[in-house]
């Protein structure tokens, strides 16, 4: 081999060396490129729970998961699924998973039911993480803990109501409920494979969480967030399910004593969010729901999917809201009446009996936002609690004036009596209100309250739970029947052999 000539050496150093050096520099710099990459839409998990401000953000994150994560639990499905399972609705849509819920033919692989389960536990983990961080963080407000406990309590309550056989007042309720998890999962070392706690234990957890929350929560809070009264109102429902009527009535009275009043008319609640009657609503904003299939108006609204129509059974029930005696009283005077709740039923044809729509073709207009699908989910409102107190008192004390008065409060707000000139009659209660004489026994009073609840709270997700806790059949399916309870999702059974499937699946 010869040595390179000086001429060529020069060429090498002039042109090539800088090039090679450049490559070298870049190559050396490249070693950092792996470390340079970092997520830009996320924070390291340990930074999300280590200070007060972060915990407050995490609480909002928990509300957000409660509201519109994949399963849209509180934002829609806690209201939607019980609605389509009960007898007020007729499911006419094409989604198989929803249809199967509506006709009580669910399968363990049902994706909508699976999403309910997954999201519920995601929310529970969100708040468990907050609750476990609170003792290590200075300066957190009592409300932070209270709201976290509230969210956990109601999430367990809504889980046990659909995934377990109902509370049985005649047993020790040792039948399987849902797994109870109170510790957060912070790493894969924390993975657990829990079995189902008994229904008694789950209700116990719910009552504890909500009772603790009552002591911590403020009387007023930002729109869509928990208050002391929201926790109390949820406890009323829990006690009603447990048949603890005295406790329910007392708790309901505390809510009624709170800062709420019935709106002037029944429609306002559905047109104005967070109105005076609202105890707890899940806020759905225009940012949350566009384009999703899991919003209430998506299914209920005629201009959206139009999947849920009014059942024949509901229409027949509408006809019984005014008793024969009441009609007679008004006939004598030549008075007419209008149930304003029916103005929220979209009638295709306004015939002679315009107040009674036709089955199968008409929808509710309670959820009006077909464009942005941003209607709030109406979880708790005063009319509901008033009727629950009426019912609890009737159950506890038989026919009593207070129950009838509470019932009449809701009725007279909704039903307007007019004289021959079409002017409202000032003392509607005289004509459409009940009195003791209307009832031969307590059961008849309770039935009247149940009917009022059915009409007043129609399409708000109450009807199925009301029927179940009263031990009444739901569209022909017995309240404790296997096929009225959601199956434990197959994916959960596959992932956790400690879980027991519900009977019948």
């Amino acid at each position, binding site marked *: 081999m010869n040595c390179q000539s000086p001429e060529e050496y020069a*060429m090498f150093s002039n*042109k090539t060396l800088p090039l090679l050096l450049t490559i070298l520099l870049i190559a050396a710099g490249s070693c950092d490129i792996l470390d340079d990459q970092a997520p830009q839409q996320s924070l390291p998990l340990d930074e999300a729970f280590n200070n007060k401000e972060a915990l407050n953000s995490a609480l909002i994150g928990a509300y957000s998961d409660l509201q519109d994560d994949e399963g849209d639990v509180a934002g829609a499905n806690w209201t939607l699924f019980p609605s389509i399972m009960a007898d007020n609705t007729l499911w006419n849509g094409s989604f198989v998973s929803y249809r199967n819920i509506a006709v009580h033919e669910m*399968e363990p692989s049902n994706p909508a039911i699976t999403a309910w389960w997954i999201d519920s536990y995601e929310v529970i983990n969100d708040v468990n993480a907050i609750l476990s961080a609170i003792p290590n963080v200075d300066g957190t407000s009592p409300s932070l803990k209270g709201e976290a406990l509230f969210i956990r309590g109601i999430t367990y309550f809504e889980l046990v109501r659909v995934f377990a056989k109902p509370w049985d007042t005649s047993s020790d309720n040792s039948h399987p409920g849902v797994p109870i998890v109170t510790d957060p999962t912070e790493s894969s070392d924390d993975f657990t494979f829990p079995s189902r706690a008994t229904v008694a234990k789950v209700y116990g957890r719910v009552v504890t969480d909500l009772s603790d929350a009552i002591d911590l929560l403020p009387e007023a809070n930002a729109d869509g967030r928990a208050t002391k009264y929201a926790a109390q109102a949820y406890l009323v429902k829990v006690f009603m399910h447990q048949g603890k009527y005295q406790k329910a009535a007392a708790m309901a009275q505390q809510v009624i004593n709170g800062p709420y009043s019935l709106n002037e008319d029944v429609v306002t609640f559905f047109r104005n969010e967070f109105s005076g009657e609202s105890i707890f609503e899940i806020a759905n904003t225009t940012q949350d729901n566009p384009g999703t299939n899991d919003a209430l108006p998506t299914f209920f609204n005629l201009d959206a999917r139009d999947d849920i129509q009014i059942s024949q059974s509901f229409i027949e029930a509408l006809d019984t809201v005014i008793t024969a005696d009441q009609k007679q009283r008004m006939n004598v005077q030549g008075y007419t009446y209008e149930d304003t709740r029916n103005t929220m039923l979209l009638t295709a044809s306004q015939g002679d009996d315009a107040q009674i729509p036709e089955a199968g073709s008409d929808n509710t207009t309670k959820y009006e936002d077909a464009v942005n699908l941003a209607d709030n989910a109406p979880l708790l409102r005063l009319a509901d609690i008033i009727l629950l107190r009426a019912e609890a008192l009737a159950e506890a004390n038989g026919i009593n004036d207070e129950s009838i008065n509470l019932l009449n409060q809701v009725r007279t707000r909704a039903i307007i009596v007019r004289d021959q000139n079409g002017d409202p009659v000032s003392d509607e209660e005289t004509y459409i209100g009940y009195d003791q004489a209307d009832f031969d026994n307590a059961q008849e009073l309770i039935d009247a309250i149940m009917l009022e609840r059915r009409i007043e709270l129609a399409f708000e997700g109450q009807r199925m739970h009301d029927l179940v806790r009263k031990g009444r059949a739901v569209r022909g399916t017995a309240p404790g029947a296997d096929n009225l309870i959601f199956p434990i999702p197959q*994916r959960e059974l596959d992932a956790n052999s400690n879980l027991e499937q519900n009977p019948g699946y």
Partner: protein
Amino acid sequence: MFRKLLYSALGLCFAFLSTGSLLAQNATITGKVMDSETGETLPGAHVFIENLQRGASTNMKGRFEITDVPAGSYSLTVSFVGYNDFKRNLKIESGQTRTINIHMVPSEVGLDEIVVVGFGEQSRRRVTSSISTIDAEDIGDVTLDTFEGALQGRAAGVQVTGASGVLGSAESIRIRGTTSINASSQPLVVIDGIPVTTNQGGSGTIGDTYGGWAGGGGMNPLININPQDIKSIRVLKDAAATAVYGSRASSGVIMIETKEGIPGRTLVNIDYRGGFTEATNKYDMLNGSQFKQIWNDAVDNAGYPGAFKIQASGADLPSTDWMDLVTQQGVVQQFSGNVSGGDADTRFYISGTYQDQEGYVKRNELKKFSARANIDHTVNEKLRVGLTISPTRTENFRVATANAVAAPFTFGALKAPIVPAYQDNGEPTVLESGAIPALIGTVFPGTPVSNQLGTDFTSTSTQVITSANATYNFTSYLAAKASFSADYLQLEEKQRITSITTDGFPNGYGYASNEQYLNWNLNARVEYNTTVFGDNEFSAMAGMSAQENEQSTMFTEGNTFPNDQLKTLASAADIIGGSDERTSYAFLGYFSRLNLSIQDKYIFEVNGRIEGSSRFGKDNRYGTFPSGSFGWIVSDEPFMDGAEFLSFLKLRASYGLTGNAAISNFPALALAGSGQDYNNVPGIAPSQLANSDLKWETVQQLDVGLDFAFFNNRVDGSIGYYNKVTKDLLLNRPIPSTNGFSTFMQNIGEMKNTGFEFDISADILTGTFKWTSNFNIATNENEVTKLVDSDGDGEGDDIISGVNLVREGEPLGAFYVVEYAGVNPENGMAQYRDADGNIIPNSQFSLAHRKIMGDPHPDFFGGFRNTFYYKGFELSALFQYQQGNEIYRTDGEFTDTNFNSLFNQSTRQMDYWTPDNTDASVPKPIFLANNGSHALNSRYLEDGSYIRLKSATFAYTLPAGLTPDMKIRVYVKGQNLLTFTDFKGMDPEAVANVNNNIRQGDLFFQPPQQRTISFGVNMRF
């Protein structure tokens, strides 16, 4: 490590220095290059003097001239595509003009053809790995809109399936089966050494975070590759070929080489084609009176009152053929041209293309402008530099597909025919219900026609791929090469749907998005070649590669527009959503290859790559991907001397590891996600748990093969077997969601793909009437061998996704459905089978149990191509086929439900059960009741085997005497002309789910492939 390499390279450079040469008096070499058989002159042949590193190309008359040649002894090489290289030693005297005529021998096999391999080149003879090649001539034969088309039916073991016939939609490419479950199984695509962006973009992309109504998949990222610029495509299939691409090579690598200039006369190539396109198939749906007949019978059978019946008849009964109204015959045309040439020092290739395609779905259009410049320059004997730049702009007028009411093909099939498309005033119907009974009313606003008219949906992509490269030859046996490239892609998407559409009703909706990808890549390597101990050759290569990819996405959406004429979001009263997201990843790899060829008969090769990825945990970033291969040219052994018929026989075997890192960008970190707002207050929530153990999915691949040629290379081909085992499958392992998370990304699970590949090409007839034939076939058997056992029962847990099942011992995505048992002739009710195979009635569907009833993967697939030449005429036909796969028609759950819904039904539903038609194929229609139309039902599972005449070309080249300075070729080409299949759905080919390895063979209103017939003219001068 790389620095050490370079230092040693520099050291080597100083140690082994080569001689320079002295200039003397000039001589000239001139002559003519022609075909040894026909005597035809060969324009564009490359004449090269090795010692001088100088050369020239022949002109249109086959002549060349090299001037300024100093006196001396030279080795002259002449090369031309399709001919064996001609080599001759010349002694040139000072001042001489030497004339030589060169007769080139056509090469039938092209064994000495140089094959570009990962980071290097090899002669085809010595390739010891499994590589399929598709050359420009093969590609030139078909009218190609996408480069993927060049792969279809042409390479054994390569399966290309279009997601749909809609322009610009992504296509699925599988090389030797699906190798992953949760990570992508698309191969790595490398253009001139640059790994390109393969992320799908735009609305509809799985996992997209922004709005819009697109239904099916996102935009094909590879659409900007211009097939006209492609010189060759190599499909690297086995580990030996792909290991230098290490961590991203487990699904194979597709290397695209673009054209370059040839020194000599400047060549111009101009091509125009124009033609028509239409759907290969359309849904055949009920007309008005058929619809009414089944509907009314269904109402009777359900016992509903007469008010539910359709009353209108005769002229009052609309009969709208929606399918026809939303489709059209599209016009396609393309102009393209390129100029190439150069001199001994500088070579160039520049090209430009304009393409304008209309799809068969109305308002689906694609306009593409692209250009390319490839330039390289020899600075001096040692240094060569090059630059390539290829800008492309594609405007795509998109249409939604698949699962969207906005999708014309979906809604066009399902909308009731008894609704008129237009009202009396000429406006499109929106809310009117036609002859649908008032009790039912409209299902939702909008019709296929109003949705189509009310939608503006454009997607504009601008992509520039630029690469600069340099080669420095220290000596004839040591060289350093480096390249730096940037791939910039911007995708802007706008959708505006007006008040007359389903999704825009009543006040309109719009969104706009902008995605940007910047992908830079640096490669550097040194190569060393030497001859040791006589005729044994040794070569070594080592290098490094760094890549960083940044992605940014923004979008805004809004609704409530004052009127339908205003198209931009500035007019929207409500801005309802928006986002700005950024993410990135990086790869850093070091690779090396050693080759040893003993007596040019025994060839050994060792490859390896060590690579790090930002996607994995810090402790597991780097993976090592070695491979080894061996080739034995049996035909050169003395004992084969007697086998005259055998021209070439090579046995090759390889084994190696490759990786897969095609997962999300930060799966190893514990994260709390933002964007968790509640009532307009921002929040965060835990989104991901850490897995610092996360590492590459690895494929261990064994490959053995025989490459052969017979009868003086008239017949050649190869046969091979492979066994690919994917270990450490990246799996979103299901965990009990009571933990607050339902999956956890882990390396768990194993999968196996095994198969045989065979391809053969033959010149069946030679001479004036020529007939060449190519045939390829491949089998692939996929089996999931290990899955996570979370529940502790000793068996891996099934993963079920829709109709598809992942289970140990079964192929990935096996169809898991309930067995349908036809119609009970007694009562017209559907029947199923229970777990024991007993027939159970429709009412007991819940007792029926799902079982494995099919496989989405074909038993075998391939292609068959014949080309005939006579004088200037050329006729070629390419068939593509696959056999033994099933397809689940999820759209059947809508179109074949005997009126379980209000949607229009296929005409097959006319054969429904009545007391007079008890031998019916369709159960009794019962209005809005489920009689045999349950989901996950083998009623909708069908054989997806097919043979398709993928393309056919008839071309004529004008005689040379007519156009002496120009070669003119006219042609007519057809694509997707004929399909032979028993499949009842739209298109057995358009079923790919590009994004999901499990949900395969699931047909849901994907529009079928398009049939195109075009005429073209090509001029070269």
